[in-house]
């Protein structure tokens, strides 16, 4: 890996004195690379004409559309080989994510981040550690996701240790299938970081292995995940259970709820999640799609059973108009800001301010009961 494989730096519109330039990426919408020495890179508007980039260019130059959307303090990754600039961190966002790897040991039918076999773990770990070094503010939460973060092995431990030390007040939410936690030495290793505020969010799709394994497309996944969950509990780790609402999981949803209540009492939260129509879910939609209007009773039974038993329950990604009113107390504004949109009809809705709205890519397919609510009377 060459020295210029990827440049990670903090964006600045404001010119900085030379001493402060290292680690910063200058943003500009005009010409002018006269005084750029010392910056990690320069990102400019694609439309403008520039000096050709050559060996005498003071710093790497990137030209992109939408440079004006970038703000001071954003942490960017710029790849010279491709000219691509990514935003890795936004201080003003509540939904910052550290992407651990595209690899996964499962292959869920509805995966919103389809896995790839290319081993990107080392590169991404380096990138994430670079981001962590640059964060100046105190984010209340950071999410670690992928692919499957536990595939990082030692890398996950490193990541958690750095976050623990650099961002002691940040809650870490790790999205994981939990399967590797069936290996006790691995749980011990991770628990050994003693991060004061981590929650492991683990999906469970049924109370029986054949349904769960089919959904995640992997033999033995259910058994490993359950073992993993129990090991996490043994090592006093905080656990959240997630269930995506699709045709295969809905049939036995209240049985799943009871299963969690009886077997996973240590879980601190259960989230029922509306299907995101992206990634694998798109190709598999005919098999997976169930109109929320048709599964309210199952959802109600499941949510009520858990809530009665004292479990904290949430419903994500389902609009208030498609939810039975008795379930409104569980609905959350769950969709990450960068992909959260509302339908034009929503402007007439009395409860839009409490509603999570849609994933961008879900706007195309509505429940038959979607529509603005006239009033909450």
């Amino acid at each position, binding site marked *: 890996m060459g020295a210029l494989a990827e440049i990670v730096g903090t964006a600045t519109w404001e010119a900085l004195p030379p001493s402060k330039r290292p680690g910063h990426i200058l943003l500009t919408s005009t010409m002018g690379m006269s005084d750029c020495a010392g910056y990690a890179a320069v990102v400019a508007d694609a439309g403008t004409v520039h000096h050709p980039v050559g060996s005498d260019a003071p710093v790497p130059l990137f030209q992109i559309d939408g440079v004006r959307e970038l703000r001071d303090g954003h942490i960017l990754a710029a790849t010279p080989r491709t000219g691509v600039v990514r935003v890795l961190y936004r201080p003003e966002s509540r939904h910052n994510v550290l992407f651990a790897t595209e690899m996964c040991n*499962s292959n869920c039918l509805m995966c919103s981040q389809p896995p790839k076999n290319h081993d990107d773990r080392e590169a991404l770990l380096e990138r994430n550690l670079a981001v962590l070094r640059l964060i100046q503010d105190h984010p209340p939460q950071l999410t670690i996701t992928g692919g499957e973060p536990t595939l990082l092995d*030692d890398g996950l431990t490193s990541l958690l240790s750095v976050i623990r030390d650099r961002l002691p007040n940040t809650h870490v939410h790790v999205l994981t299938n939990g399967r590797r936690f069936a290996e006790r030495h691995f749980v011990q290793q991770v628990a050994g970081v003693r991060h004061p505020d981590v929650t492991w969010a683990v999906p469970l799709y049924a109370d029986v292995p054949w349904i769960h394994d089919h959904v995640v497309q992997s033999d033995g996944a259910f058994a490993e995940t359950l073992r993993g969950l129990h090991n996490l509990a043994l090592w006093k780790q905080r656990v959240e259970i997630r269930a995506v609402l699709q045709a295969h999981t809905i049939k036995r949803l209240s049985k799943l709820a009871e299963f969690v209540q009886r077997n996973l009492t240590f879980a601190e939260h259960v989230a029922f999640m509306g299907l995101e129509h992206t990634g694998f879910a798109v190709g598999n939609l005919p098999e997976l799609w169930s109109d929320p209007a048709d599964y309210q009773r199952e959802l109600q039974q499941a949510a009520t059973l858990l809530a009665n038993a*004292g479990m904290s329950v949430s419903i994500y990604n389902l609009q208030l108009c498609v939810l039975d009113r008795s379930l409104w107390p569980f609905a959350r504004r769950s969709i990450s800001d960068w992909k959260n949109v509302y339908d034009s009809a929503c402007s007439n809705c009395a409860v839009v301010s409490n509603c999570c709205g849609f994933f961008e890519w879900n706007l195309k397919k509505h429940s038959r009961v979607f529509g603005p609510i006239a009033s909450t009377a």
Partner: protein
Amino acid sequence: MSAVPTRPLTLPFFRDRHFRDRGEFHPAGSGYSLLPFRFLRSDDRECLVNECGEYLLVPLGTAARIVHRQIDCESGLYADLCAKQFISDGRYKTDIDLLATKVRSKRRAALRPTQLHIFVLTLRCDHSCHYCQVSRQSTASHEFDMDEQTANRAIDVMLESPAQHLTVELQGGEPTLVPQRIEQIITAVKERASVSGRSLSFVVTTNLANLTPDLLTLFRNESVHVSTSLDGPAFIHNANRPRPGANSHDLACEGINRCIAELGPGSVSALMTTTQLSLRHPVEIVNEYVRRSLHTIFLRPLSPYGFATKTAARTGYFGTQYLAFFKAALDRIIDVNLSGYSLTEIYSRILLTKLLTPVGTGYVDLQSPAGAGFGVLVYNYDGDVYLSDEGRMLAEMGDKTMRIGNVRDHSRRDLLRSSRFSEMVEAWCNESLPGCSDCAFQLYCGADPVFNYATQGDIVGHRPTNEFCKRNMAIISHLLNLIETGGDDVRRILWSWVVPKAPAHDPELVQT
């Protein structure tokens, strides 16, 4: 720090991303194994219960079909049986370690060493309750009071228990007739238990007729919980619990009010004892509890000890009548809850915890191994130690079978190694009692060798005619029925008794 994993993971995980359909994940089906479970047949269905307390209500004949491997693996029942660990599929075998964890969780509460220590401070009492299980003595004779040395020796024995939490229950007769003893014991226990860093709870069981300001101050300062009797409205309460002036009910209510006002609403709880008179008035009794601003009620049956048996004609022992009373009272209690007033029935709460949750309870009268001697010890005014309160009552009737020693002569070790205790241990696990060992409700119920001895003449007991058995089986069946058919609101109420009020929802949790 190196980013390369120390243990190589086998890549690639998937050669291609072709999706396999559900047929490839089909359970094995026909060759399933049985996991341990028992069943019970009623008129119209069967109840299956497994080794960790999970249950299934199924059509008649299902247990036989399961055993004969006739359950279709496509059916919802097959999935239920696997999920709840009644059977193990040939392909997707049950994780035995997980089942073991659940079995352990269920039994853990019953295996805690002696937490409850009952001190009988005096036999004197100003009441002469018909069902009293203690010999009455006039309020003048101090020879039936526990003296200071005996109290200290009893505390010595108590502190030998390795329990991390100790509940000290001060009883009698009427303990408020010896306030100095109450104060002495609380002070001594606090001082001595603090050395080992144990947590403590104090309970005083009193009729509230002698509640002085000094006592209230003591209770407030030491966070003493007050347990009293309220048998119902005055006409029932006073008839059951005579005293000079026939004003037990007034005094009890006044006492309850003063406790609520000066010690806080949760500081006082009441229980009722059912007599023949009570049987006819379940609704009025429940209503009285609401009227007195009480939020818990314990529907206790008449126990067959002490004066109860002597005055059998007046009080009478009953089986089916009690059950009818219990159901009617419970219905009324549920209605009260539905109207918005929180009222928990304690006996139901104990059973519901066993039915609905993965854990057991520490209620000494309904567990296996029996709580007697193991979960609870009773120190009588004269230093004699008994396995349970019921055992002491038997002694007051002249039968000292359940006496295991005396605090002056014996340590806790001596007491638990006494031949009396060893004999009782033979019959203290319902897993090995005739009738109980095959019973579907075994995990929800318990063993009560003292009860068996008192009512049937031996510690093992004769199950078909045993009142403890009949009562518990009927109540458990009734609760199961309520859960299954009572509807969403009733289920919500029943659950609210099991689980304390849930904390407010977390602030918005987000996902990516």
